[in-house]
């Protein structure tokens, strides 16, 4: 539907252009939220309760208020509607001793170590910090349910207001085909219990923001987030203000990866600006979290446990899948119910499964909340599905690639939810291409040896090499009947006499979290309008100038925004032809509606499209120390159409390294509701010396029938398959399976010793 109004240029879709925002980012000129805080701003400090589960008996802020420089201490009593949440208003803005009738969530219970108790606002950051230390609270300790097992075996309820009799609060089922018949036809059975770890986003920019009244007297928040309009919805709810009195702006954002999808500082900063303005103090209020506050204070990739059984007949054709999925939601829902849905439909893998029983649930605990993180429940499910598949290959003696070829989902396949897959299932091609690029049929080529000790030569006798493979799908866009949409507005500029517009302005709210979304938007607008990229101005990420874009998540933004931009361009083109100057096109794109799953059978059409990935990994392990070096990664992606191939490569490389950390070194530990290593010195993300020696990004372009210019979502895909491919490679090297990760040296060595005795 490319609507070329203008002349031909080569700065549109498919061009490997440089990012327009790169110059500001290499000179230090780019402004992140902390850089936006003006010199005369007040500083706010959020006080965490430090109580994983306790009842607040008394709160005394008088010493804090009397502390030098403190201008206000805000508590639950100051919040009009003391609750918020992205999918469910289950979290108090502040834990407090007061409860008004606007919320049913008991405000006097701290359910998480990082629940907010107060906000101390002072003249300087140091004074706010000093004041915060003087906030006093008396607590009555409640039973701390530190993990799933504790939460399921106790009578203590974390959210009794829900009226349920267990901390298990949301579940899905799948009942497909005839399990008994499937089992009867089965030759090979693989069983496993998998423990899935947390992952911390570790975006380099800790949470920060500021709030003030803009020149139109709108209460304005500048912050790093993923969805301006949803932040505004939650602000409006908690502050009891109409949305048009609120404004959300995102300046440069220092990474997100799902970790900024939920509220951090937005509500408390706006509340402070509002309450202070009521007292006549109209200064902006700013706050910056430390790294520790960031790690303790925001959600994680869910940890969980999955028990799974996979059956196949003598030819390797899958006969049935059974699985029980439990995810640790932590203290509040965040997006846990939706993450669970993704894990639920992913745990049977990317295969045709005639018979299945799957039961999935999320459980409230007093641990850190689980929430969105690149892959959104998919990586956990794919780890299980693909490890099961790789174990099946070992057990049956069938080639792992062949096994996938005969079972893969393809066009026309019935999905695990008993509906047909959306058109454009390119998984068979992706699997084949990855196998070819990785030379799966041939012996591995030599890799240079490594030593885990810099001063010592490699211990050749201790090194073993292996290779593993995994593939997956990941939905693109919001699922399960959520009203998905995305808006764009384009102004075509030029003189009356101009045949073609000479320049254009694109208005879009979609969040640039680092991935290059705005560059991709501009290129798509250039393609759609015919105006060269360099002549398109973008006005981005401000609720005051753009309609709702939906979030930068679910690999959806390029896909959804592209469709909205195409629509707006074609509207504007009509206006242009009718002589309007500027010619303005507004468009709200709505994809085909999806469906919630049937509560008993899990039948339904959960997603309108998917992206596909396959990865092959070659690695070396030092069997005496347990250290692993990844020698080669072949990451194969059907991206439909690469809007900007260099940006696509950047997404693949970046996600591969995040997955590498998830699989190997990122070991977030929690005990009795407290995170034990909330620092970069204790939570180890990969440095430049830790990354795979080689990542080969294989970019395929099998057009998505619904995608803009054929594009598919892709940014989450590399995250899906890395851990299972690596575990398969480690098995190939050592003969040992690992049903949990990260594959830290001590875990690897313990596993090897268990087997060799």
């Amino acid at each position, binding site marked *: 539907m490319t609507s070329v109004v203008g002349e031909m240029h080569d700065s549109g879709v498919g061009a490997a252009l440089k990012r327009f925002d790169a110059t500001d980012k290499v000179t*230090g000129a780019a402004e992140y939220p902390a850089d936006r805080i003006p010199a005369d701003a007040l500083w706010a400090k959020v006080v965490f309760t430090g109580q994983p589960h306790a009842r607040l008996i008394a709160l005394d802020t008088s010493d804090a208020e009397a502390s030098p420089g403190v201008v206000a201490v805000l508590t639950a009593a100051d919040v009009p509607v003391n609750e918020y949440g992205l999918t469910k208003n289950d979290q108090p803005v502040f834990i407090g001793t007061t409860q008004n009738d606007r919320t049913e969530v008991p405000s006097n219970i701290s359910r998480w170590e990082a629940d907010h108790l107060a906000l101390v606002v002072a003249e300087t950051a140091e004074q706010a910090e000093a004041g915060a230390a003087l906030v006093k609270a008396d607590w009555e300790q409640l039973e701390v349910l530190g993990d799933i097992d504790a939460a399921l075996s106790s009578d203590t309820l974390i959210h009794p207001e829900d009226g349920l009799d267990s901390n298990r609060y949301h579940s899905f089922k799948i009942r497909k085909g005839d399990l008994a018949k499937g089992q009867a036809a089965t030759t090979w059975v693989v069983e496993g219990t998998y423990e899935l770890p947390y992952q911390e986003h570790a*975006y380099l920019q800790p949470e920060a923001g500021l709030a003030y009244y803009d020149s139109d007297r709108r209460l304005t928040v500048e912050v790093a987030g993923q969805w301006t309009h949803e932040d505004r919805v939650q602000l409006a709810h908690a502050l009891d203000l109409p949305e048009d009195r609120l404004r959300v702006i995102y300046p440069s*954002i220092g990474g997100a990866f799902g970790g900024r999808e939920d509220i951090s500082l937005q509500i408390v900063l706006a509340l402070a600006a509002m309450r202070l303005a009521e007292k006549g103090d109209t200064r902006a209020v700013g706050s910056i979290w430390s790294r520790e506050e960031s790690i*303790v204070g925001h959600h994680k990739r869910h940890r969980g446990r999955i028990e799974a059984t996979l059956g196949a007949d003598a030819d390797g054709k899958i006969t049935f899948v059974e699985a029980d999925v439990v995810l640790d939601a932590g203290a509040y829902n965040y997006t846990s119910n939706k993450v669970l849905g993704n894990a639920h439909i992913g745990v049977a893998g990317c295969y045709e499964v005639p018979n299945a029983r799957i039961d999935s649930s999320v459980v409230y605990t007093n641990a850190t909340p689980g929430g969105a993180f690149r892959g959104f429940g998919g990586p956990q499910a794919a780890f299980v599905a693909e490890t099961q598949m790789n174990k099946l290959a070992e057990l049956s003696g069938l080639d792992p690639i062949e096994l996938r070829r005969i079972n893969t989902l393809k066009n026309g396949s019935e999905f695990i939810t008993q509906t047909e897959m959306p058109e454009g299932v390119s998984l068979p091609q992706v699997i084949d291409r990855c196998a070819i690029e990785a030379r799966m049929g041939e012996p591995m080529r030599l890799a240079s040896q490594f030593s885990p000790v810099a*001063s010592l030569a490699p211990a050749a006798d201790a090194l073993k090499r292996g290779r593993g493979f995994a593939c997956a799908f990941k939905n693109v866009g919001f699922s399960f009947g959520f009203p998905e949409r995305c808006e764009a507005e384009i102004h075509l500029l030029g003189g009356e006499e101009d045949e073609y517009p000479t320049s254009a302005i694109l208005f879009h709210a979609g969040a640039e979290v*680092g991935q290059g979304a705005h560059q991709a938007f501009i290129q798509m607008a250039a393609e759609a309008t015919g105006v060269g990229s360099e002549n398109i101005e973008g006005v981005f990420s401000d609720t005051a100038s753009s309609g709702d874009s939906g979030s930068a998540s679910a690999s959806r933004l390029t896909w959804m925004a592209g469709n909205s931009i195409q629509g707006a361009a074609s509207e504007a083109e009509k206006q242009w032809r009718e002589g309007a100057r500027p010619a303005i096109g507004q468009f709200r794109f709505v994809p085909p509606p999806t469906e919630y799953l049937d509560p008993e059978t899990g039948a339904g059409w959960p997603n309108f499209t998917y992206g596909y990935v396959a990865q092959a990994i070659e690695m070396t392990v030092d069997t005496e120390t347990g250290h692993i070096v990844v020698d080669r990664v072949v990451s194969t992606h059907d991206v439909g159409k690469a809007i900007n191939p260099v940006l696509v490569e950047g997404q693949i490389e*970046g996600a591969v390294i995040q997955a590498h950390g998830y699989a190997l070194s990122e070991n977030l530990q929690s005990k009795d509701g407290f995170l034990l290593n909330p620092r970069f*010195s204790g939570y180890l993300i990969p440095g430049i010396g830790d990354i795979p020696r080689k990542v080969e990004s294989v970019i395929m372009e099998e057009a998505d029938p619904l995608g803009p210019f054929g594009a598919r979502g892709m940014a989450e895909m590399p995250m899906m398959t890395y851990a299972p491919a690596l575990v398969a490679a480690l098995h190939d090297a050592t003969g040992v399976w690992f049903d949990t990760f990260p594959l830290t040296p001590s875990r690897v060595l313990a596993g090897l010793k268990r087997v060799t005795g």
Partner: protein
Amino acid sequence: MTHPIQAPAATVETYHAPRTLTEALELLAANPSARPIAGGTDLMVELDRGVGAANPVTLIDLTRIPGLDEIEISEDLVRIGPLVTHNDIVSHPALPAIALPLVQACLEVGSPALRNRATVVGNVVTASPANDSLSALNALDAVVHITGPSTSRDVPIGEFTVGVRKTVLGEDELVTGISIPRDPQRRSIYAKLGLRQAQAISVVHLGVSVWLGATGEVTDARIAIGSVAPTIFRSIAAEATLVGQPLAPPAIGAAASAAAAEIAPIDDLRAPADYRRDTTEVLIRRCLTALQTRTEAQLWPDRTPTLRITDRQPTQPTKVTLSNSDAITVTVNGTKITASNAASLNLLDWLRGPAHHSDPSISLQGAQEGCAEGECGACTVIMDGQAVLSCLVPAARANSDNVITIEGIANGGRLSKLQAAFVDYTAVQCGFCIPGFLVSGSALAEEMSDPSDAQIDLALSGNLCRCTGYYKIRDAVREATRSELG
């Protein structure tokens, strides 16, 4: 009452920069709770976390005292001054041949920018059992020189540390040097096992020395193991197993097992005790094998990036004592900037706050805080011609010195070659880490041309990026450091 991670930072009320050792000792005698500071890479983190006894704090910065950063090599001794940094050791041309384990250990500490500030004496005084240089110095029979108000004393390194972060150093004393005996008969090596290639806290580290007799039998040995006990553990059993035996597999294996049997490590977040025991055995075996095959120095790199553009040239500030509210003057990117809050802020916060706001025509918020503990490198700047982590430098330390930030990297408004390469290679995603990479990369480009990939990785080992996966960053640095002819 706050969450433990929210404990307020300690306030530095007074900052002294004495000009002589005597002055420093007098200040210390007059302020028994004052904290001497050199590189500050441990102390600044402690202050930020509000741990440690005194608050408010008085700092006595030793780094303005001339002559304390020397490495003296005499016929029978190497003497390391109290301000000698890890990078001074790593880049010293003679030391690998004299004290190999020490140079190997120093390269394992932190990242280049951290090594430009962190001192070896500081590593010893901090006395964490995981501190890398301790096992190396122990294997080298080092002696710690201590000076107090009236007396001086020498303590063997093995007796200097008495517990986790506990030493025999008195409140009014300073460590004024470390000596290592020179011994041409000694053959030594250091090994460290961590959970990451760089910036890793040791899971096990150890120094091994052997002395061989005329017929190849071991006449003496020292095996010092770190991270397996509250202090460095010397395995007497392993040493005894070796003595009198030829340095060859049977004795090597027996010594390694003896050491593993002798230690009693504990579980912690990094590794369980079993793992420490198992890998201690592996490392000792591999180290002794390297000594047997005379390959202990084989992997020592020819040239290690240190991210120093010039020699350290700290100028003498005009004012030696600063209080919390005093102003300092720093030449930042060629412009003299005067702004307050000298004592209480670290250099990063001073640049981003008072300095940035001191003049609307300048902008100094490109350096970023990603961790405030020396792990991420987002705050990297050049001070005194060397890359440093500005979150770990007291602002007062920069008084009257030269600082270059990301804003000073472009040449008169034109992107530098490296900046342009980052744009060309799309090495930038969210960009938050990028100022740090560019400052480190620019220092590397000044230090050497045509660095190998290993050298690039080493130079950038203190800069974390969560978005790019590093490949395009490495490509950009390789491109920009290519010599015109090369």
